[in-house]
C-alpha cells in the first residue's frame, strides 16, 4: 500500500512524525516532488482564486500524487495544543479539496484535534491505522517510534540545523544575526521562499528561525496582548520574534509572509509595532506565485547593508 504525503503546509512542521509513523506501519510513503513551477501552476488552476499561495500549492502537490498512490493524506488540523487552533483554511482543507478537485476520490482525511494530549494523538493514529486495516500493537510501536523521531528532529532544529534545506544556520563568526520568521511551510520551501534563508547565509548572515526555540521557551513569552492569537503557527512566530527582540538575539527581523494571508496581517502589524518600539530593523517580504527572485534579493541586500551601516555607526560612537 502507498500513502502520498503532499510536500507543503503540515509537511514542514510534522513530516518527521507522519512519515516515520506510516513507514513503521509498513506502508510505503510517497512524498510529492519538490515544489516547482509546474506544481504551482497546477494548483493555481484548480484552487479558488483568492486563496493564499500555500493553499494553491497544496492543490498542486495533491495533483502531483493523485495517480501515484492508493491514498493521499489530507489532515484536517484543528488543534495540537490547549490554547489555539489552526487557520480556518487548515480547518476546511479537506472540504475545499473535495469541492475544487472533483476527481480526487482517494483522500485519506485525518482529523487532528488533540488539544495537546498525547492520548488523543494516539487515538487519532489508531483510527488512521484502522482505516488502513492495521491493528493496535503495530500502531503503538509505530507511534512510539514516530514520537522519538519527531523529538530528534526538533532537537536538531534547536541546534541550528534546518533539515529541509540541508543547511547549518549558525556561524558564530557572522557579523549580522537575522531572525527570519514566518510559517514553516513558507520558510523551508526553497521554491516558494525563493531561498531567502540560503541567500542570507551566503551574504554572511547568521539566521535564526522560530523552530530553533524550544516550545516551552516560546510559551513563556508574554505577548502583552489582551487575547492570545487564535492560531498555533501565528503564536509561534510572534512569541519567537518577541523572544529574539527581548533577549537582543538579533540585529533585525525579516517577516516572510504569503500574499493575502489572513492571520498574518495581524502578526505583521504587531511585529512592526513591536520592532518600532524597540528600535529593531524590520522587513516584511510578501510572496506569491508571481514574486521574482531579483526583487527579493535587492531588498534583502539593502536590508543587510542597512544593518551593517547601523552597527558600524554604533561602534564608532562607542569608541
Amino acid at each position: 500500500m502507498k500513502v502520498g504525503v503532499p510536500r507543503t503546509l503540515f509537511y514542514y512542521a510534522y513530516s518527521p512524525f507522519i512519515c516515520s509513523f506510516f513507514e513503521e506501519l509498513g506502508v510505503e510513503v510517497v512524498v510529492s516532488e519538490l515544489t516547482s513551477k509546474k506544481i504551482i501552476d497546477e494548483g493555481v488552476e484548480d484552487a479558488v482564486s483568492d486563496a493564499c499561495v500555500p493553499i494553491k500549492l497544496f492543490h498542486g502537490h495533491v495533483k502531483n500524487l493523485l495517480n501515484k498512490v492508493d491514498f493521499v493524506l489530507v489532515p484536517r488540523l484543528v488543534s495540537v495544543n490547549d490554547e489555539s487552533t489552526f487557520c480556518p483554511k487548515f480547518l476546511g482543507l479537506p472540504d475545499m479539496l473535495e469541492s475544487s478537485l472533483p476527481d480526487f476520490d482517494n483522500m485519506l482525511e485525518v482529523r487532528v484535534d488533540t488539544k495537546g494530549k498525547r492520548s488523543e494523538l494516539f487515538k487519532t493514529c489508531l483510527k488512521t491505522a484502522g482505516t488502513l486495516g492495521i491493528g493496535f500493537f503495530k500502531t503503538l510501536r509505530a507511534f512510539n517510534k514516530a514520537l522519538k523521531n519527531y523529538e530528534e528532529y526538533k532537537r536538531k532544529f534547536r541546534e541550528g540545523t534546518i533539515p529541509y534545506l540541508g543547511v547549518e544556520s549558525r556561524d558564530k563568526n557572522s557579523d549580522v544575526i537575522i531572525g527570519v520568521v514566518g510559517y514553516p511551510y513558507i520558510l523551508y520551501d526553497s521554491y516558494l521562499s525563493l531561498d531567502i534563508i540560503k541567500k542570507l547565509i551566503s551574504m554572511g548572515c547568521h539566521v535564526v528561525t522560530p523552530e530553533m526555540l524550544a516550545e516551552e521557551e516560546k510559551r513563556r513569552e508574554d505577548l502583552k496582548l489582551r487575547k492570545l492569537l487564535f492560531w498555533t503557527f501565528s503564536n509561534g512566530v510572534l512569541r519567537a520574534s518577541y523572544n529574539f527582540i527581548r533577549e537582543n538575539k538579533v540585529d533585525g527581523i525579516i517577516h516572510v509572509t504569503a500574499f493575502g494571508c489572513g492571520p498574518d496581517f495581524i502578526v505583521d502589524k504587531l511585529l512592526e509595532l513591536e520592532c518600532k518600539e524597540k528600535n529593531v530593523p524590520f522587513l516584511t517580504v510578501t510572496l506569491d506565485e508571481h514574486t521574482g527572485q531579483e526583487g527579493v534579493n535587492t531588498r534583502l541586500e539593502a536590508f543587510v547593508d542597512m544593518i551593517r551601516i547601523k552597527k558600524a555607526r554604533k561602534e564608532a560612537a562607542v569608541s
Partner: protein
Amino acid sequence: MRKVSFPFVGTANIPFENLMRAFGNDVILPSRPTKETLSLGTKYAPEFACLPFKIVLGTYIEVLEKGANTLVSTGGVGPCRAGLYTALQEKILKSLGYEFEMITLEPPSRYLKDLIQNIKKLINVKLSFKDYIRIAKFIWKELQLLDKAEKLSHKVRPLEVKKGEASLAYKKAVDLVREAKDLKELLEVEREIENLFDKIDKKDIDPIKIGIVGEIYVLLEPSANLEIEEMLGDLGVYAERSMFLAGYTFYNAIMDLFRRPGEMDVKKEAMPYFKEMCGGHGRESVGNAIIFAKRGFDGVIQLSPFTCIPEIVAKSILPRVCEKYNIGFLPVTLDEQTGKEGLRTRIEAFVDLLSARKKKNFIKGDAKNGALFGY
C-alpha cells in the same frame, strides 16, 4: 463622563445608541461610512486587513476626533480573525496618539465574567430591575422593527410601479423607529410601517429570486456592499439576505449564553460539504445557500471582503453546491478598490443569465421548476 461610540453597522446604531443613553452615557454617533472613512482606515490599517476592519478603523478615527473617549465593539472566539480586531485596532490607534478606553464585548459562553465587568463599566446610572426589563423590551422591539422594515423593502422594491418608492418608504420607516420614545409608540410605528409599504403600487409579477450570503459586516452595512440590495431591487429582483440584526443578536448573544449552537438547520444543511466549524460565517454561507435553493431561489450571491478566510473556504465549496442544486452562483469580493459600476455590470449579467435560464426551463417544462403545462 463617558463619551461612548461604536462601529456603524446598518441600522444597528439606532437601538445601540438608545441602549447606551439609557445606561447613562453620552453618545458620539458614528456617521455612515463614506469614501473618506474608508481611506482613513486604509491609510492606517495593514494592507491585508479586510474591508470591515478598514471601515471600522476609519470610523473610530472619526469619532475619536469628535471627542469620543470610549469605544465599544464586539469580540469573538475565532478562528476568524475578527475576534482579534479590537486588540489590534486599539494598538494602532494608541500608536497614533489617541487616548481612549476600548471595551470589547466578548461572547458570554467563554467570557461571562469579563462580559459582565465590561457591561458594568457602561452602566452609569442607577437602574431598577423593572427599568432593565423596560429597556430590554424596547431595544428588542426596535431591532425587530428595523429588520421588518428592511425585509418589507426587499419584498416590495422589485414590484414597485414607480421606481424609488420602496427606498423612500424604508427611509421613512427607519426615521419612525428612531423617533419613537417608548414601547407604546413602537407598537404604533409597527402598523404605520406596514401601511407605508401597503400603499405602494405594485406590479403583479413573479420576480427572479436571489439569496445573499456571506460575511456579516458586508452583508449588514450597505455602504460596504455598495447598496447591492437596492441595485438588485431596481433590476426587478427579489433579494433576500441570510442574516438580519435581530436574529444574529439572538443567536450569538442569548443562545450562546446557554451554549446552544445557533441556527442548527443551517449547520445541518452545510454538514455534508463543510464538516468543520472554521469561524466567521463560512459554514453558514454554504448552509444558507442550500436553504435558498430548496426554497426555489434562482441564484445565490456571496459577499465577502477580500482576504476573508472563512469565506474563501466557503467560496471553494459553493460552486459545487450551487451546481448540485441547479441554481446560479456569483461570488463578489469587496475591497477598497471595488467600484459600484463594475459591480452593477456583473450583477446585470448575472440577472440576465438567471432570467434566461428561468425562461428556458419554463418553455421546456422543467419538472423541477413546477411548470409542466405542455408547451
